[in-house]
């Protein structure tokens, strides 16, 4: 093991981890993203404390404009549901769907990419053909088809998004793994007789972490957008409040009561913006070339 430790320089992974947060904090856009995301996370966490009642309850007079009644700071929608409560609880649903869907596509994408890149040959061929198959289908059409065939529930929406957003990640991971595969570190591990699984998990993947983290933050954002678009088209789970379903419900009163669609729409903008800013910041912070500057 001592040989292994000396032969395998962990140097490449250290700069990735050390001081990442500090470096992130040096970038104003990343700080803005973090702050915004923190606020949304706080909304999601505090939803049950601030608005303990069911956000689907018809709590007040329908069509109260924001500010018209102090009890409903963001107004009420066409059914008299509290929009502020909807935005808080919707944060929870949107983040949950974004997070779990991204997790699903991370597992598939990283798995496929790592196996294809590490084993190359036939496995690579087969897996990349499957990936291409998924990539030929327009990205939004596929979830629509899945949700329309299965019933729109939270689970099917998460699966539909997760199952359709992994191909680009798989290709990215594969490219990185292919690069590392022939590096001295991996070759040395093979010489030392480590199992393939162990090499992939302990030596290859940690070095691919940077691009994965960056794309994951963007994927959460696009998952939230996809869920919102599905809900807007009426393909969301009708039993839960999500920002997209609120926008969809407000669409038909857009000419008269535009705030019903606009308020949750702004929440979507904020969340997606926060995640994109964070993704950019992470990208810069994790880029070793930029560190050397």
């Amino acid at each position, binding site marked *: 093991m001592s040989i292994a430790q000396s032969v395998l320089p962990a140097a490449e992974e250290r700069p990735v981890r050390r001081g990442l947060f500090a470096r992130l904090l040096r970038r104003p856009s990343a700080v803005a993203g973090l702050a915004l995301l923190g606020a949304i996370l706080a909304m999601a966490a505090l939803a049950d404390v601030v608005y303990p009642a069911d956000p689907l309850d*018809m709590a007040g007079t329908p069509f109260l404009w924001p500010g018209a009644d102090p009890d409903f700071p963001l107004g009420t929608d066409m*059914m008299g549901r509290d929009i502020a409560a909807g935005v808080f609880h919707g944060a929870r649903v949107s983040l949950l769907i974004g997070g779990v869907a991204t997790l699903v596509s991370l597992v598939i994408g990283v798995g496929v990419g790592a196996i294809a890149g590490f084993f190359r040959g036939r496995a690579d061929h087969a897996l990349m053909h499957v990936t291409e198959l998924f990539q030929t289908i327009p990205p939004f059409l596929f979830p629509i088809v899945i949700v329309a065939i299965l019933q729109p529930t939270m689970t099917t929406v998460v699966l539909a998004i997760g199952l359709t957003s992994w191909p680009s990640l798989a290709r990215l991971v594969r490219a990185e793994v292919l690069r590392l595969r022939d590096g001295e570190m991996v070759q040395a591990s093979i010489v030392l007789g480590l199992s393939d699984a162990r090499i992939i998990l302990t030596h290859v993947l940690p070095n691919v972490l940077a691009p994965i983290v960056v794309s994951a933050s963007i994927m959460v954002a696009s998952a939230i957008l996809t869920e919102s678009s599905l809900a807007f088209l009426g393909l969301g789970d009708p039993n839960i409040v999500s920002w997209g379903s609120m926008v969809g419900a407000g669409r038909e009163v857009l000419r008269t009561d535009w705030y019903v669609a606009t308020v949750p729409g702004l929440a979507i903008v904020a969340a997606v913006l926060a995640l994109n800013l964070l993704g950019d910041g992470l990208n810069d912070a994790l880029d070793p070339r930029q560190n050397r500057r």
Partner: protein
Amino acid sequence: MTSTVSRFVLLRATVLAASVASLFGGAAFAGTPQDGGTLTAIVQPEPVTLTSAINTAAPTGFISGNVFDGLVDYDLDLNPKPALAERWEVAPDGLSITFFLRKGVTWHDGHPFTAADVKWTLENVWKTIHPRNQATFGRVTQVDTPDDHTVILRLSEPSLAILSSVNSNGAQVLPKHLYEGTDILNNPYNLKPVGTGAFVFKEWSKGNHLILERNPNYWDKGKPHLDRIVFKVIPDAAARAAALEKGDVQYAVFSPVPLKDAERLGKLPSLKIETRGYEWISPWLFFDLNVDNKYLKDVRVRRAIAHAIDRKAISNIVWYGFAKPAISPVPSTLPAFHDATVPQYEFDVKKAEALLDEAGYKRGPDGVRFALTHDFIPYGDDYKRTGEYLKQALKRVGIEVTIRSQDTAAFTKRVYGDRDFDISSAWFAAFSDPQVGVTRAYWSGWVGKNTPWTNGSGYRNPEVDALIAQAQGQARQEDRIATFKKIQQIVQTDLPSIPLAELKFFSVHAANLKDVVTHGDQIYGSLKDAWFDKAASN
């Protein structure tokens, strides 16, 4: 029928709106009609054919009613008024109906209109390929035409529903000389119709517009007042609202703009919202409760659900006030048949909870008694909101509802075929006789037959089946009314389905377009009375 009409978004009419409209709509327009002008109307979606006799879709009926006349028209109270038939007689035993036809009426190509046209259409179209009339005219065994202007229907059993369905939509007469011996469904005249009506078909530019022109030889002298009608196809709801607002279009029907926009447009001085003209359709919205469900098979649970629902809130909030709470499956728009004395289930959460306790379904530690699913009719946001209301209303009494959404094909298969649902929603057209539109919801013969828009609840009651059969053969209208009232009493006691609201479509028309609604079947009738008030320009 329902399936074709109902893809449009429905609208409500508050009692107020309706009564105000009738105040100003009827007698108040005493001004003398002025001739001339072109009316531009919206038809949405574009019709497939222009002959209602073979296709009962709403857009077809909307145009076809101007080209063809019915044997009768229906006034705003749905009484038959003379049209092609000047008068009619029902034999005392109910076994024959005689129509005395108007003389001197010609088809648009100059051929005289005679009893032979009626006889031929009844035998070759209504009884064979008409989607609705096979039931209505099923008891006609023979048609006699003693002269060119008399038609006698011989019936095996009395069939009074016939007289409620002989307008230009219910029983459209086709010109025998153009259709006899042809493939009726593919006859080219279905796309360039030749009728007897106030307007003559001129041209149809597919996907664009359709033009009708004034019939100078119309039998109703002095009518029509308009020179021509242009029907435009505008698929986008926002574009329709803009066209009406701009004045490019002066008439649009079947709730052409989003519900909430109607209020805004109605406030404009140049436009009017009209809720009359749909009386002949008489739609009502309801929840079907699957009586095979282990909870819903208990009538106490069904009544508890009815008590938990505030039908006023459904009309006023969910349907923006454009609906009227319903107490019976026979809408109050059929005043003769409607029974206002049926058991009422007023909004009372305590009573609902007591009934559920009594049925043995106590609240669990989490406050939930049991869980149900709800499948809403996938015709738009209004029905989805109705489902969301149901979920919240039943949650209050401890019933957890999961809403499911799906497309129309999956919905009808689930409810009317597989019966794999707990509570579903739908709206039916009652039409002007409950025999035509209401009995299908309760007759046990339809259960599980996968015939859409029939008995969804799975209700099987031999007594009701017998009463339905009895009403079909009763000769005296008073007897039929009594039978239908008995049916309403029973089904509202057993409550397999909960009537929620009497829905109404609305039309939007220019304020200077007068007398656009003069009939209860106006939506499928003729615009022969409409005229532009040139003094009151927009």
